[in-house]
């Protein structure tokens, strides 16, 4: 059965690597639902967070192929339950709508959102949360006419106490020494 999985990839920060990673999905006709790349806690190591909907068997195989990419240090996959994750959404609404009633103010309060900028014409609201939550907020705000809307890719961390990469880097060094 297909379900959402979060793939986390730790890699060297090299040009072209994004392409090398995504072609593994393209070739199997797997759609990437969201993708985020940033530097990890370890200097020089990038972290990819990729969300796909697939069967566990296929995810497992793709992750093994990803680990074969020379610059990839380690790849994991998790179900949504196994991770803490967030997305960020920005909404632009007409400022006039805020004058007309308290509804938008109430929505902002209720959703734990915040207002980033107010101009005469528009107001930018920010909310973080899961996709369902940011989507609900969108639907509610859209009664007043959302002028623009953008949602980020997912960021996620495991429920482990430490960044597992450091363990893996150590294991990896031991392996490399053993093979010589």
């Amino acid at each position, binding site marked *: 059965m297909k379900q959402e999985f979060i793939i986390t990839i730790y890699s060297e920060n090299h040009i*072209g690597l994004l392409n090398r990673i995504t*072609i593994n999905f393209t070739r199997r006709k797997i759609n990437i639902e969201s993708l985020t790349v940033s530097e990890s806690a370890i200097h020089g190591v990038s972290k990819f967070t990729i969300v796909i909907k697939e069967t566990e068997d296929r995810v497992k195989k793709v992750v093994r192929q990803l680990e074969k990419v020379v610059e990839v240090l380690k790849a994991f996959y998790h179900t949504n339950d196994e991770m803490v994750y967030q997305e960020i959404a920005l909404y632009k609404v007409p400022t006039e709508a805020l004058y007309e009633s308290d509804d938008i103010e109430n929505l902002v309060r209720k959703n734990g959102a915040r207002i980033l900028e107010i101009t005469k014409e528009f107001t930018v609201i920010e909310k973080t949360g899961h996709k369902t939550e940011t989507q609900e907020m969108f639907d509610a705000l859209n009664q007043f006419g959302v002028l623009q809307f953008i949602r980020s890719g997912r960021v996620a961390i495991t429920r482990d106490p430490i960044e597992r990469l450091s363990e893996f880097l150590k294991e990896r060094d031991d392996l490399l020494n053993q093979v010589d």
Partner: protein
Amino acid sequence: MATKRITGSQAVILSLLEEGVDTIFGYPGGAIMPIYDALYDFDKQVTHILTRHEQGAIHAAEGYAKVTGKAGVCFATSGPGATNLITGIADAMIDSIPLVCITGQVASPLLGTDAFQESDVVGISMPVTKWNYQITTADEIPGAIAKAFYLAQSGRPGPVLLDIAKDAQFQEVDYEYKKCTKIRSYIPEQPVDPFKVKEAADLIDGAKKPLLLFGQGVIIANAEEELKQFVEKTGIPAAWTLLGLSAMPTDHPLNVGMLGMHGNYGPNIKTNEADLIIAVGMRFDDRVTGKVSEYAKNAKIVHLEVDPAEIDKIIKTDVAVLGNAKKSLAMLTGNVKENRHEAWLQEFRDCDKIEQEKVIKKDTYPEKAGLTMGEAVRITSEIAKHDAVLVTDVGQQQMIASRYFKFTQSKSNVTSGGLGTMGYGVPAAMGAQLGAKGRTVCCFVGDGGFQMTIQELGTIVQNKLPVKIILLNNNFLGMVRQWQQLFFEKRYSFTELQNPDFIMIGKGFGMEGHKVTKREELEDGIQRMMDHDGPYLLEVVVEKEDNVFPMVPSGASVSDIILEA
């Protein structure tokens, strides 16, 4: 080590020499001219083979790599030069062949401007390379070349590509070369886990009907001796995949033949009777497994494999032993009990008897009027004392040659397995001849594939490479025609060819040759080819509509193998 100030192009050549490169296959052009200029001063240290097409260069590099175990090296210019390499790179990727390809690229300020002969070679080659990298400054060159050779040749080998911008070739660099032995993000092979070896050994000791399947991994790991010791200690029948050919002598009593769609009857049918499959350095390709859901249903699976991504990819394993086959096989031999499986082995011999009667005799000692591919292959192998390097193209002749050519030493089979690249044979044969100097190289091609890279006859003649080319001409794209006959109601859609006078074409290139159409001329013809000092083209006109059997029909189980139509 003291550094010296040289150009990027000189650094390319010196770095290649540091890696022990003695042969380069290539084709010059604008964006790689500085490298070719540097090469001009090194004609004593390295042989450059100017092919007639970049596809010829890349397949030649593959042939060279297959017989030597070393990386094949290829030069091409930017744009079309580089794109012409792609088929061969894809071929090397799927067949795990170490290659280092160096392509020229437009000068770095022109990147992305649609400059003359610019193409995004790093982008294009990414899905078909183990690693690739674009070099835009000369000081990156030694390090990148060191990394390229390390990656191409270690772990599961594969092709790598370096795309060098023209300005980096001209730039000066303080040259110093250090071989690459380690990359933080890359583990070439896992250390063999002794617990897994023990688990595997227990399964092996307990098995009543074990069958070993071995592939090219044995050859890559130089584990031929370890394989032999393992099967001789355990008495387990062993079958080779197409790419595993020659890893064991053909006539070894425990070698039960070839797996796969056109493999031998015994190993295919017995796969589904075995209670244990020991797969060594092979990847359960669909041409080997047939219908996966019915494959080896009675067997537990032990998989010895260097690439973790191959474990459970197609067939679920019970015990996976990761690591280099040379090490894992040796450890396994140390852990298993001595054993014999006489009755089980006899079942393979019985299958062989059936196959001899129904297929092999008719193929190799035919009584009908027309010549068969099988007899040409049998006689060639016999005259070569079963000690030649076999190079095949793709199609019927490939399957027939793989079935009937015999081997006494390893690294003697050069063929395009995974990609099935027509046109591979002739250029791969010239590469193989350069890698295996002094050995006889027999190249079987069909009339279809021959015409895809026929221009390389010129390269063979210019370089006096004594390749023996046996053209098995049935005037058809034979394998496609066979499928049309069997599965498309004989609708021969675009498979018949109007062929040229091949011998005259050969002569035009300066290659000796002659044509054989009758059985009484065949043996003498082959002898004449073998005795000829230099390259030779022997055209054997064979039956137009012969088929290759046995055959596991596409999508059928290996036990549904058919012996005749």
